[in-house]
């Protein structure tokens, strides 16, 4: 079984430890570099995403697969790549969160899993995230895209306030801002001057791919 096939099996078994040990052994044996391993994991996740779209894989499996590889990437591969100074291959860096005053997380987490499965580096800030925190983390991680989720009509206004904050700080052109969530719409996104809107996770991937191309 090739290294990639081994990784694929471990990912679909949701075996976090196995993924990590495969990667560790390959690094120790100099069978593959961290960059190569990350690329392989990316390919496996892309396949998982494709199979999800065909309804062969269900949503919980997609999320579980993303969670399975996350530890290995965060704890093993990313530190090596950072240290080596090599530029990490990614479609783009996304900082993602649910806006202040809102604790809904499922939709936003799905978008995160989908973006990750499609080759984006995703930093999920969680829920109840203040506009200032979005900006701080986006700068820290060198984000290309900031994704803001709002599930309440009273919290969606934070999306508008965040874009105003970026304008005030003179940083509006530094990031692409995308918004989503049940009460939002394409019109709303246009109104507040966001760079895009999608109503589901698959739409969010297409939107982000379009923004980074």
């Amino acid at each position, binding site marked *: 079984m090739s290294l990639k096939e081994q990784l694929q099996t471990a990912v679909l078994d949701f075996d976090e430890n196995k993924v990590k040990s495969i990667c560790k052994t390959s690094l120790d044996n100099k069978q593959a570099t961290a960059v190569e391993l990350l690329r392989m994991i990316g390919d496996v996740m892309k396949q998982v995403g494709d199979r999800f779209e065909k309804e062969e894989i269900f949503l919980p499996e997609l999320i579980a697969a993303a969670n399975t590889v996350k530890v290995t990437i965060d704890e093993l591969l990313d530190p090596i790549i950072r240290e080596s100074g090599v530029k990490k291959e990614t479609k783009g860096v996304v900082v993602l969160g649910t806006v202040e005053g809102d604790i809904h997380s499922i939709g936003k987490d799905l978008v995160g899993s989908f973006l990750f499965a499609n080759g984006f580096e995703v930093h999920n800030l*969680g829920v109840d995230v203040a506009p200032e925190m979005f900006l701080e983390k986006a700068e820290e991680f060198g984000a290309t895209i900031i994704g803001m989720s709002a599930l309440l009509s009273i919290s969606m206004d934070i999306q508008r306030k965040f874009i105003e904050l970026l304008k005030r700080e003179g940083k509006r052109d530094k990031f692409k801002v995308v918004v989503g969530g049940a009460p939002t719409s394409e019109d709303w996104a246009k109104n507040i001057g966001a760079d895009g809107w999608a109503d589901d996770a698959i739409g969010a991937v297409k939107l982000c791919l379009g923004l980074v191309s």
Partner: protein
Amino acid sequence: MKLPKLEIFSSDEIKEIHNASMQILEEIGINVEDPGLRISLNENGAIVADDSPYVKFPNDLVKEKLKLIPDSFVLHGRDGDFTAEVNTHSTQYATIGTPVRIYDPEHQRGVRKTVLTDTINQIRIVDSLKNIICSHVDVWPHDVPYLELHCHVIKAWAQNSTKPYGLGCFGRLPSQDMMDLLSIIVGGKNELITHPRLIGFFSITSPLSFSQLMTNGFEVFAKYKQPTILAPEALAGSTAPITLAGLLAQTNAEILAGAVLAQIYNPRAPVLYGTVSHITDMRTGNSAMGSVETGLITAGIAQLGRYYNIPSRGPGAVTDSKLLDMQNGFERYQTLMLAAQAGCNYITCAGSYEATLAEALELLVIDDELVSMIKHTMEGIEVNENTIGLEAIQRVVRSEKKGANFLDDKHTLTQMRTAHFLPALADRNRRTSWRKKGSKDIVQRAREKVNSILEIQRVPPLAPEKHQAIDAFMKKVSKRSYEYYKETEGMMDKKGTVTIDHVEISEDSQKK
């Protein structure tokens, strides 16, 4: 636990209906046309009088013969590999009806007259569906002569299906042809008798009448032990009392008399305790098959079937709508669900609409999904340590992850494919995704499924020598005259046309 069976009668009420039916059989009797059959019934203990067309069935005769009726039988597909047991405790789903029109959105009227190609397509779709175990000669092929029709459809079935098939007991001559053809196809008469392929349909004319044409055919089916549906279509208010209890008492007598007849023809011949009875709309005199009363009558029939320990048959997925509209949807689901909840053992009429006069292959695949949905519902809610999932609740709530949920918990992962029913045709997309996929309604999606089935469905070909034998047999049948048919069926004194299940039979119908 599983959903309990719907019982619409108390045991006292069941006995009251039973007693009334026994009284009908003993005091009024059944109008039996065939003089030969009258003699045979008399020899077996029925009371026949020269001055009355009605043959009376003493209670003891009925009780004695009912004891012989099998409480289950197995239907086999063409090659014998496919089997479906019909019994008194499970439910099978099938087609039936005599649609003479088929849904065709391209046609000006939305429907057109059915032809043999439609019959074949219907057989092929049923062959591919998970839940529908048998197709009957539902879609009437107008482009073949009536007296050869049974041969054409059996040939079509043999070439296109691995499931059992159904046909009406339309006369002695055609029924014998069916058995002869089937024997060629399955490899002999004995094989056919021991492993039945065909399910018969004995139409009883309400009130209380057996036509000679039907009893002629029924005898052949019973002799070959092909299970036969006893199928009165009594209409409350016109061919039966307006009250449903009255209809059931009458129709119960009709069914029991049919069951007795089968046992006289051939002891232990399998039958289905059936009905397709419904009501007459008193405003117009039209029959109302999609009515709520159809479901109630079917529920009553299912309970009576259990009382006699005979598998029951009732209609489900029936509607009076002329369109694939909301009325069609709610009437078909309502009748199907009631029949299933009542524990009816053989539920028919999938794919039909307009009181089974019209067929839509789209509805056939939709009905298959409805059946899956109903089967899932009937399983109820299972309660045990695993299904309560206390550990999962603890894991998620105590998770350090803010906003943790059940989506990626192992309790979900291990059961997500079985815990819920996942429809293939019903749409659950959000509006944007649905729009991107073409804003299709369920009929369009069902059409796509029909087309994809028709593209890929194939069955192992029949042996060439069987083909030759079928063709030679059909050649022989095609040479028969209408007069010969009438003579064989004892219909020489009948003038003009005969109507069987909405189809008019005459010398003209012999012409292609």
